[in-house]
């Protein structure tokens, strides 16, 4: 059987699309597999933007249009092995299974990590029960790739606005877009109490950029595809890869196994939309399926490194909502326009709160200033009967609701894993990814400590009533005022599971993202992250994919 392509990329999200651009730029021919459908790009004419997405809450938020369907391709979840084989079958932290992956549904907050996020072990030190490790790369080495990633995706932001940001070599490619009214209210309150809110670095065009229009503030941003391609979904790198003529994108094609012989990958087995199996050969394989599907594919391929699937991380999300005495129209604008980073600092108060719980330190995360935008989700929270319309008109849970969401740093733990479910299969008959996860005490203490501060800001903003919640839910002594959502973390920020490092006995990949077990396989996504940080993973994984793909192309 002949090799038709130099490289195969599994997954067309931000990591895989970036790899496709870099490998084709280096002259390699590339085949991109995507298990989901293509609504993002015109394969016959990749230079033209197809405009297929829509402002449609039912389609995107209720009916799984971007996939995966939770019945056809479920995942399973349990909090520990004591729960038995699983507690839940269905949707577990699903990212879209569609051409463009998570880049399609994200509202594109794209912060960089800070210098110390790459050196948690040496700068903050170990924590009992957590498998903290330094990254095999520093911020200084990553900075040029961050700058390049911001240009490729198109990030709007204001250099210097965040006093806690890492150093940067230049301005953002675009200025920030218009501030949402609600974010102005909460930012003013935060500022008054000594915090430092700033315009969120956002992969949404504030001006025409790279042939794509400026955002027109339609409000259907997080969880939706952008109807006018104003978001930094991966349409740009995919389009650039395809117009070289050296790339082919194959949607609805599910890679079921990497073929590996004697420490070398030779190709992949894949399943087409009718369920038929095929083989495709190539000398280089890039895996970019996301931090849950990537370890699943490695395990389905028979790889045996006991670190595969270990240390899965989410963000511990702490929500503080305030019902305001006035309307905030959160349905106008790009979901989140302001954030603050103060809770990422390990200051004296944080150390004191940590010491009380016998922890050496605690770290929070980026706080998003947000307000809900969608009516069906709102309506379902109200009771039926005469109260329904009264509540819908007064709108305490949407048009008068402001919120904070802290993306709290989640420490890696060896016992938090993604593996293959022993019985549940997807529609193709393949074992699905099973997550075994519970937060470390660190996350619970940090959530409680910083959640109380966020409640003070919300009070200062004028909220009539304040509610707090966490995801995953907190239990036991640390539950305090937090209400329960679910033990399955709802954060879509997933990382870990194939960490890279300098020691083959404690990592899955080498410092360039290549499998120790098969060095012609490169992992491109957030599976590589040894620690998570309190920032969303996307810009960092794009920057890493740039760095590692360039070395992989040689």
């Amino acid at each position, binding site marked *: 059987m002949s090799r038709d392509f130099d490289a195969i990329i599994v997954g067309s999200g931000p990591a895989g699309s970036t790899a496709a651009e870099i490998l084709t730029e280096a002259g390699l021919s590339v085949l991109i597999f995507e298990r989901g459908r293509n609504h993002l790009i015109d394969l016959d004419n990749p230079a033209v933007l197809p405009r*297929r997405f829509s402002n449609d809450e039912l389609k995107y938020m209720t009916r799984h249009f971007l996939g995966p369907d939770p019945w056809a391709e479920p995942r399973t979840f349990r909090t520990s092995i004591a729960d038995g084989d699983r507690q839940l079958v269905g949707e577990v932290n699903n990212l879209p299974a569609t051409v463009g992956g998570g880049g399609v549904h994200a509202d594109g907050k794209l912060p960089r990590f800070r210098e110390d996020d790459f050196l948690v072990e040496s700068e903050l030190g170990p924590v009992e029960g957590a498998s903290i490790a330094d990254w095999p790369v520093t911020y200084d080495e990553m900075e040029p790739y961050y700058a390049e990633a911001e240009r490729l995706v198109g990030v709007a932001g204001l250099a210097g606005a965040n006093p806690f940001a890492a150093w940067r070599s230049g301005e953002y490619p675009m200025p920030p877009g*218009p501030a*949402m*009214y609600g974010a102005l209210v909460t930012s003013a309150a935060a500022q008054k109490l000594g915090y430092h809110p700033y315009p969120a670095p956002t992969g949404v065009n504030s001006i025409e950029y790279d042939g794509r229009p400026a955002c027109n503030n339609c409000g259907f941003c997080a969880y939706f595809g952008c109807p006018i391609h104003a978001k930094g979904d991966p349409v740009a790198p995919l389009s650039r890869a395809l117009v070289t003529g050296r790339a082919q994108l194959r949607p609805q094609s599910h890679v079921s196994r990497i073929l590996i012989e004697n420490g070398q990958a030779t190709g992949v087995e894949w399943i087409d939309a009718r369920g038929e199996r095929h083989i495709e050969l190539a000398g280089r394989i890039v895996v970019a399926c996301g931090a849950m599907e990537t370890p699943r594919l490695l395990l389905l391929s028979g790889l045996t490194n006991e670190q595969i699937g270990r240390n899965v991380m989410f963000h511990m999300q702490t929500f503080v909502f305030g019902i305001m005495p006035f309307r905030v129209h959160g349905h*106008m604008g790009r979901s989140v326009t302001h954030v603050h980073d103060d809770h990422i600092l390990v200051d004296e108060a944080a150390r004191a709160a940590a010491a009380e719980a016998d922890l050496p330190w605690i770290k929070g995360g980026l706080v998003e200033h947000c307000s809900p935008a969608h*009516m069906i989700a709102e309506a379902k929270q109200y009771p*039926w*009967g005469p109260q329904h319309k009264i509540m819908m008109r007064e709108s305490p849970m949407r048009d008068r609701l402001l919120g904070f969401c802290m993306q709290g740093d989640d420490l890696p733990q060896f016992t938090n894993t993604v593996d293959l479910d022993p019985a549940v299969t997807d529609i193709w008959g393949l074992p699905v990814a099973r997550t075994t996860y519970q937060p470390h005490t660190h996350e619970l203490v940090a959530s409680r400590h910083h959640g109380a501060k966020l409640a003070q800001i919300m009070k200062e903003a004028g909220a009539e009533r304040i509610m707090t919640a966490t995801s995953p839910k907190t239990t036991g002594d640390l539950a305090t005022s937090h209400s329960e959502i679910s033990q399955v973390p709802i954060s879509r920020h997933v990382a870990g599971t194939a960490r890279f490092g300098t020691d083959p006995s404690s990592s899955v990949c080498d410092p360039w993202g290549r499998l120790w077990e098969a060095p012609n396989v490169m992992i491109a996504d957030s599976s590589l992250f040894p620690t998570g940080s309190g920032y969303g993973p996307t810009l960092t994984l794009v920057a890493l994919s740039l760095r590692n793909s360039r070395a992989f192309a040689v």
Partner: protein
Amino acid sequence: MPAFLTPLQYSILEAVCARLVPADGAPDGAEMGAVDYIDTLLGAFTFTPPRIWAGGPFSGRCGGQRSFWDFEELSPAEELAWRTRIEGSLGIPERERLGPVTGLQETYRQGLAELGGKFLALDPAAQDDRLREVGDFTRLVYEHVCEGLYGAPEYGGNRGLAGWQYLNYEGDVQPRGFTDAEVSGA
């Protein structure tokens, strides 16, 4: 002509929706199209393409072509998942991979049969009591009523945009969007 419901089922569901979202200054849930939304969902596969996902990018309500009416085709896997969800597994092996599934059609058939034609003769307070008694079914219908009132009208509900209009909600606004002044102003 309903896509799935019989005339009696349709009438009972109208009465249910009128209690879940009663009339006040604005029309009740049935008058705003909730029953037609549910009927379109239950009968989604009587249409080609099925009425699962409306098209895009624009509805035409704020400019652009009226492309929501061009419903999306489903892949074989998507069709299997949605037929299983709506019609149930019905003993078909490929639909029972995760165990038997009771479809929405059967849930509605049973739920409406349990309320029966006599529900129509009850006074509103007695109707509310019955709805509380059949709590699980009522919760399911209420979720669908919320979808039917506030979702896009192409899915069968939100008749004449009644669900959006009584709240002065703009709905889908592409390609017009909102101005920077609307976003940032009070």
